[in-house]
């Protein structure tokens, strides 16, 4: 594996050298030059991203088939919640609190959300409205659940990994207990009233239509909006700046007059909110029942956060990659050569976890974790 990575790196540096040598393209920390003329770096970034999208679009236009679109469609059901939960972890850790309880928060948020949705799924209220309210309730429940971790980590200065572990143990136990009590079994079956066959003219757009605007859920769009807002909020607003300061150098924030504890509560509650919603979104489009488990997705989100070096843009890239891999276990039947390979289907389930180990091995050497993450803030220690 290492050899493959090295040759890929070599390939790119060869291209880079060739381009630089011939003065076609030159990039370094200070400037970007195309054909030996200076170009605004921001403009260059935007143009290159647009170009990539256009190339991918053309490729899919030319080679797209119904089964390929199905695979891509299903990937989105996994990628979007994965990004959401990873962002939840981002908010918490950027404020200075390590949160390994994403899994537990997902389970708990989904639990309350599903209970609400099942209660009203037969009523006359529009099912999409129920879904939307269910999402809000899932988020709120996750937020309330996260207060347990916040209290232990911030007020009690407890070990954050232990507190997180306690929450991961608590969520399924409490969910299963009440499921037995209220529904008599070990899971909550729900009817999928929320599937949307097509969305008007949007469905007809080539390539984009079959992937994003057909046979999907509105929840995808809600979460994309939430993700964009969350990303911008963290880097452009006053609260975002203060929150990040608390995770890097809480004493500096304290000396600047910021209430570090309040900021950290905000960070943890955000993680509960986002993880709760993410938990619900991994149940509704993908399963027929809530089973009080997140199948390790909370920890995969944590791995995404770490591999993404705690930066939103990188997290999204890593999540797309991971989500696609995760999707294979459910969608491989649609990919001809995989179906013919005849591998037992649980092998596909193992894939993403094995892959994570490799990715982490390459990305963990120089960790750019928020410097103060995991250390309780003690105002007494100057």
């Amino acid at each position, binding site marked *: 594996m290492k050899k493959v990575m090295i040759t890929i790196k070599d390939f790119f540096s060869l291209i880079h050298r060739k381009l630089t040598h011939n003065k076609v393209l030159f990039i370094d920390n200070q400037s970007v030059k195309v054909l030996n003329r200076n170009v605004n770096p921001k403009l260059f970034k935007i143009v290159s991203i647009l170009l990539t999208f256009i190339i991918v679009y053309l490729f899919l236009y030319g080679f797209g088939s119904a089964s390929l679109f199905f695979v891509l469609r299903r990937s989105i059901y996994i990628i979007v919640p994965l990004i959401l939960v990873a962002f939840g972890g981002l908010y918490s850790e950027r404020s200075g609190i390590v949160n390994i309880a994403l899994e537990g928060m997902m389970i708990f948020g989904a639990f309350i959300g599903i209970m609400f949705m099942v209660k009203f799924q037969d009523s006359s209220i529009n099912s999409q409205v129920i879904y939307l309210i269910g999402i809000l309730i899932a988020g709120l429940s996750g937020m309330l659940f996260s207060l347990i971790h916040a209290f232990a980590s911030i007020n009690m200065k407890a070990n954050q990994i232990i507190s997180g572990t306690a929450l991961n143990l608590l969520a399924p136990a409490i969910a299963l207990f009440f499921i037995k009590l209220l529904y008599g079994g070990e899971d909550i079956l729900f009817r999928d009233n929320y599937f949307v066959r097509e969305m008007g003219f949007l469905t007809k757009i080539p390539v984009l239509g079959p992937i994003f605007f057909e046979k999907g859920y509105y929840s995808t769009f809600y979460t994309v909006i939430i993700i964009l807002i969350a990303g911008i909020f963290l880097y452009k607003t*006053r609260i975002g*700046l203060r929150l*990040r*300061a608390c995770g890097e150098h809480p004493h*500096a*924030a304290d000396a*600047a*007059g910021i209430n570090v504890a309040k900021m950290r509560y905000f960070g943890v509650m955000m993680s509960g909110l986002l993880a709760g919603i993410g938990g619900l979104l991994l149940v509704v489009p993908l399963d027929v029942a809530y089973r009080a488990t997140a199948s390790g997705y909370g920890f995969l989100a944590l791995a995404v956060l770490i591999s993404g070096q705690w930066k939103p843009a990188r997290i999204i890239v890593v999540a797309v990659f991971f989500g696609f891999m995760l999707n294979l276990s459910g969608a491989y039947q649609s990919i001809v050569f995989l179906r013919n390979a005849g591998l037992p289907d649980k092998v596909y389930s193992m894939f993403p976890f094995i892959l994570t180990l490799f990715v982490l091995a390459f990305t963990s050497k120089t960790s750019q974790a928020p410097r103060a993450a995991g250390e309780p803030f003690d105002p007494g220690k100057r």
Partner: protein
Amino acid sequence: MEYIIEMLNITKKFPGIIANDNVTLQLKQGEILALLGENGAGKSTLMSVLFGLYKAEEGIIKVNGKEVKIESPNDANNLSIGMVHQHFKLVHNFTVAENIVLGIEDTKYGFVKMEDAIKRILELSDRYKLKIDPYAKIEDITVGMQQRVEILKMLYRHTEILIFDEPTAVLTPQEIDELMKIMKNFIKEGKSIILITHKLNEIKEVADRCSVLRKGKYIGTVDVKDTTPEQLAEMMVGRKISFVIDKPEQKLGNIILEVNNLTVLSNYTHKPLIKNTSFKVRQGEILCIAGIEGNGQTSLVEAITGLNPIHEGQILLNGEDITYQSIRKKTLAGIGHIPEDRHKHGLILDFSLAENLVLQSYFKSDFQANGFLKFNAIDEHGKKLIKKFDIRSGQGVKTPARSMSGGNQQKAIVAREFDRNPDLMIAVTPTRGLDAGAIEYIHKQLIELRNQGKAVLLISLELDEVLNVADRIMVIYEGELVAEVDPKTTTENELGLFMSGSKRGILS
């Protein structure tokens, strides 16, 4: 008298210690008041109370004659009080501008108005001649520039009363001169300054009056122009101290340590931290490598002791090539190491004192048999060292290192390393953060070692220590040795020029 700030009968306690014991401090408008005391006297604590980081148990604070409550840095800022901290409170991966506006950001609908802020910062930077780049990240700029950012933080908040906490610790003599000029400019503008320091010459140069603290208690306030440095020192320490250490004539012997063409690269950026450096240390001499913090001292020591890999070069100990040996082998070959950071490298805080005292020797047959530790022998050894080096601890050999004072922790490390009888003793800023008594003790021990014919490599940031203790001085700048001088013939000014790279000397 018009006092702009009065701190009256302030008492601040921490668990087990009274940091400020009924202390009074009065600052006149438009003056520079020096706050003098040695390490641990309570100066930083007192100013942290004034700045709102701590709350005093007793006492009151008056600003312009009116009694006020300062419970957070925001309150202090509202009263126009600002502080430049000794350990900068800057976020390393934020820009200069972000650090300056943190806490008082101007916003529109919640979004930070960065452009306006940068404009204002550049105006202030121009007006006070504090040159900085608002877009630069803190981790990329020099220490001197970082301090300017701290000062700009205060000016951005319209501070009138400025507190400087040991500001010159990280500056070259030339940068110190600049800072003194900046401070005098602030006074001309009508601001008032409290300068925390333990450097007597700086007090003489720039302060009007000086208040002295000793072990938490207020000793008195004097007019600087009427007081000699010796008198100030006596107030600070409580007895007459001599500035010069007694050293018998050197008796040089064989070369113990020889470093040839050493090059060390950074692990992350592959930039050279040590460039093609060579020097020797002989039996019976103390070689002191002086320099501003961050010029490669740490990397040099880490390379010699094995904590970091070497890229090129050779290290010989007693003629034997130890360049690529493991840390354990190097230690056993005869190197003693008093590390820069006693908490990070020197001790395991949650181990007991006895366990820490055998940290470098637990595997020897004195202390273990067939892999099983001999606890009696370890305890006896600990007791012996406690007695010999006068290490104070709450519960004797069983004391957890964490609960010992900084001075005694350092003594424990010194005891352990000295007891091993190394041929070469490497001591990196061994007296940092210690009180005068402990400093004197450690200097005595190092000179004793040298008298016994051992070789001592001393890394120091304090010019006093460098000039008094060393037999030979070399100056390091940006990873290279740029000068070699005799402490008897050089001056602080000359050393300052070498340390800031403004001048290069001849190496033997």
